[in-house]
């Protein structure tokens, strides 16, 4: 009997198909009432469902009964869930999907921001652009110098942004501030960025109005995003006229390790090509680095980067105050840098980023009889939490702390006493900011940053705001505003005079239009400086008063156009910056335009792939209007201008294989036309017997700089 019951039960199960069906139908529309086509409408956890048709209508039947959840989802919209009772007749459903603004990203904040990314097509530059920009010599800062907002300062090689001094621009790797982004050098020998562009998959250059996440920079933030796991196991060899490097990258499933060693010596090159300076020890650098990556989960990543560099140089430099003969200048530098970050996403909506950096830097400088030792240790720690709240708000909030110890020993001459400078600073900061999407076309990013300097015993609160509005299918307008604070440089802090933060306020208005593969940007800005460092002598060492009494302004208009469409396999961009800036700072007697603040800067960058000869050619033309300098033989202050500065650089990369391994032969030359550029003049402190102040021009170390490099990558997978 019981067997029969079981059997009939089995039969019943197989005959389950005969059950009553419930019809579900309705329409799916977006917020504007337009039908959503292709939306997936289904019962949660079941096969039963349908897609919406051209009119946004759906219809399906189910054999299920009771309470069920109806799910409606489509790309770019927030998924809707609705309870339905299948035991009853269900009337036609009308469902409205709300656009998920974060997913759509129709409008982005572009005021002040230049993004370079290998991933995002919206980015204006990618890391390959950095390497292939002629005249940049594969230096990140050099390539950034072809973008609007920068003023070229050849003798420094650093970034000067919108009338700001170089110390007003800070560099960040994976969100963490880098204490020594440039290599150490002596006056008139330009520095380079310490980091190879190949380490990074993306960069964002902000010439103002940046996020509340970043502080301690009055003018600009350069954000570098390090690479994730490298693709393949490989060995890299590079041979250059100025040195060479060897690297080995090993890739496992979720882990990678790369080790590299580099040796640079300009001696062979500088012996061959006549130099204006009298070198005693041509620049030489030994360095090594380790890069470790580990994917801890599908969304988690642990990164470690460590590098050590040891460099030295020595030369005899002309000094206008020392007519007896040149002064022997020598510099030795040691630098250790660690950067470690961890990122993980929780429940798809919360991302935690945390990291730490350590920098140890040591400079031994000798100039004539004077000897200076400067050493610093810097620790940075930061934790950021990013959360998606609802469908239109992304919140970023975080804490940051910096510990910095700086020691300087200054020996004017062998008989004088050692003057010691000591700065121990701790800076803590907290910030919160939110991207709020107000409809499809408007996004606002209000933010607030609080900072405390224990050395200064001061707090600073910086409000920030950025807004972007899409005005047409291709164009958008953005606005950015913010307060920015920076602790004065160690050179001032070491006197232990009560000082305060330097401050800048930014106002930026931007229009950007993207049509096809062309981008047009026009940006205007006004920047107001307060509490700049001032002292009452031409040279800081002669000053008796050091205070925050300085101020200044910078305003300008910038233009950028990039076209990757018109020329087949070609790409060009034009960037132009106009700057009007004056400041009263340092030992200035009156407000004046500083030497780095040239009024007009123009860059034309053109790159072309020439397939028949497998060569990628790049050329960069740059123009900088005459740079201001102070001529004590004339009335007034900073009243003179140098001649206009021009540069035409060329580079070519020939792509080939060497014994089956991908090989690039790269040649580059700066200032091809050999134009005699003068960066400025240095005048004697005292007039000569004729009552005139003698002067010496500041000029590049050589008329041209040429480079030949051979890069080979030996890939294990493709033997």
């Amino acid at each position, binding site marked *: 009997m*019981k*067997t029969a019951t*079981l*059997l009939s*039960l*089995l039969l019943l*199960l*197989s005959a*389950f198909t005969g059950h009553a069906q419930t019809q579900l139908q309705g329409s799916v529309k977006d917020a504007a009432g337009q039908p959503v*086509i*292709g*939306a*997936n409408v*289904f019962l*949660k*956890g*079941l*096969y*039963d*469902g*349908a*897609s919406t048709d*051209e009119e946004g209508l759906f219809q399906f039947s189910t054999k299920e009964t009771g309470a069920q959840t109806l799910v409606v989802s489509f*790309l*770019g919209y927030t998924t809707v869930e609705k309870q339905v009772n299948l035991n009853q007749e269900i009337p036609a459903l009308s469902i409205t999907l709300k656009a998920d603004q974060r*997913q*759509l*990203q129709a409008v982005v904040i572009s005021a002040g921001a230049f993004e370079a990314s*290998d*991933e995002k*097509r919206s980015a204006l530059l*990618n890391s*390959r652009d950095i390497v292939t920009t002629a005249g940049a010599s594969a230096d990140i800062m050099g390539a950034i110098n072809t973008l609007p907002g920068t003023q070229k300062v050849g003798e420094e090689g650093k970034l000067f942004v919108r009338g700001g001094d170089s110390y007003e621009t800070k560099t960040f790797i994976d969100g963490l501030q880098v204490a020594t982004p440039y290599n150490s050098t002596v006056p008139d020998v330009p520095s380079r960025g310490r980091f190879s562009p190949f380490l990074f998959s993306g960069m964002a250059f902000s010439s103002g109005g940046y996020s509340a996440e970043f502080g301690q920079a009055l003018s600009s933030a350069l954000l570098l995003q390090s690479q994730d796991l490298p*693709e*393949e196991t490989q060995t890299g060899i590079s041979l250059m006229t100025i040195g060479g490097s060897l690297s080995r990258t090993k*890739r496992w499933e979720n882990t990678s390790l790369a080790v590299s060693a580099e040796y640079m010596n300009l001696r062979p090159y500088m012996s061959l090509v006549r130099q204006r300076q009298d070198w005693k020890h041509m620049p030489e650098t030994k360095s090594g680095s380790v890069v470790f990556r580990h994917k801890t989960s*599908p969304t988690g990543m642990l990164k470690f980067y460590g590098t050590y560099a040891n460099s030295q140089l020595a030369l005899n430099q002309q000094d206008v105050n020392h007519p007896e003969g040149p002064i022997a200048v020598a510099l030795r530098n040691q630098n250790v840098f660690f950067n470690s970050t961890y990122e993980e996403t929780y429940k798809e909506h919360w991302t935690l980023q945390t990291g730490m950096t350590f920098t140890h830097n040591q400079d031994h400088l000798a100039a004539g009889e004077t000897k200076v030792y400067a050493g610093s240790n810097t620790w940075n720690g930061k934790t950021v939490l990013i959360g998606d709240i609802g469908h239109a708000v992304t919140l970023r909030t975080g804490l940051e702390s910096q510990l910095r110890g700086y020691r300087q020993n200054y020996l004017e001459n062998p008989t004088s006493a050692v003057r010691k400078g000591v700065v121990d600073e701790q800076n803590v900061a907290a910030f919160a900011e939110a991207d709020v999407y107000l409809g499809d076309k408007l996004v606002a990013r209000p933010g607030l940053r609080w900072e405390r300097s224990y050395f200064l015993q001061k707090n600073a609160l910086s409000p920030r705001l950025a807004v972007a509005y899409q005005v047409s299918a291709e164009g958008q307008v953005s606005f950015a505003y913010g307060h920015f604070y920076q602790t004065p440089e160690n050179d001032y802090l070491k006197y232990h005079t009560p000082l305060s933060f330097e401050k800048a306020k930014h106002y930026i208005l931007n229009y950007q239009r993207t049509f096809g593969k062309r981008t047009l940007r026009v940006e205007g800005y006004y920047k107001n400086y307060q509490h700049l460092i001032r002292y009452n002598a031409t040279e800081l060492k002669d000053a008796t008063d050091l205070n925050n009494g300085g101020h200044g302004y910078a305003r300008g208009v910038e233009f950028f156009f990039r076209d*990757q469409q018109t020329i087949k396999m070609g790409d060009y961009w034009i960037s132009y910056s106009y700057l009007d800036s004056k400041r009263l700072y340092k030992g200035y007697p009156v407000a004046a335009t500083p030497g780095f603040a040239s009024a007009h800067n123009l860059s034309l960058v053109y790159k072309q792939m020439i*397939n028949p000869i*497998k060569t990628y050619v790049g050329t960069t033309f740059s123009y900088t209007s005459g740079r201001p300098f102070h001529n004590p033989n004339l009335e007034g202050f900073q009243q003179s201008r140098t001649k206009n500065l021009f540069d035409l650089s060329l580079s070519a990369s020939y*792509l*080939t*294989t060497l014994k*089956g391994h*991908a090989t690039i032969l790269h040649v580059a030359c700066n200032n091809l036309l050999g134009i005699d550029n003068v960066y400025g003049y240095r005048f004697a402190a005292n007039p000569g017997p004729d009552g005139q102040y003698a002067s010496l021009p500041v000029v590049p170390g050589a008329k041209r700089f040429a480079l030949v490099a051979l890069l080979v990558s030996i890939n294990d*997978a*493709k033997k």
Partner: protein
Amino acid sequence: MKKLFLLPLLFIALFANAQAKYQAALTDALAKMEASKNAEEMQNAANQLTRIANAEPKEWLPNYYAAYAHINLTFLLKDEDQRDQTLDKAQVFLDRALKLQPKESELYVLQGYLHQARLVISPMMRGMKYSGLASAALEKATQLNPNNPRAYFLLGQNAFNTPKMFGGGADAAKPILAKAKEKYAAYKPASSLLPNWGESRALALLAKCQ
């Protein structure tokens, strides 16, 4: 006593019923995907496969096909952001499948295919990165199953689309595609639901290399 024998039978029957339902649903959805000629039809097929994948969280195949349909969909879409977002979705399904079946060669093939789909959205900017990622995934697929014809097909396609100056081109692709042809000829899927695509495309590409 007898009912003790029948009890397992009942469970088998229950299980078989569910299995049959799952297989029927998957077969139906795959047929729709094969027949898709435009983005709308492919979207519908992808939706249907998504429903099956969501309802069968323990089966790798529906997740595999949901990812596959979404990748195929991107080749029919025009908007580049939409294509990228669709691939993000495909990656979610693929990750789920990889969690269920980490040693399955076909899943690495699909990962390579997904990387290729990323690449074609912006070859100039993404070429270097994604062709490397694709070949790494595909090499892994050949290690897990040296007889997987799709791995060779996509490796050949990767080589074909790589510029000559980086060691690609028709000459480099030809021997790999010839190998794919060989492997396709020998390939017999263990069940009608297992991956069995790419042969005609591989042959067409091989013809282009001649």
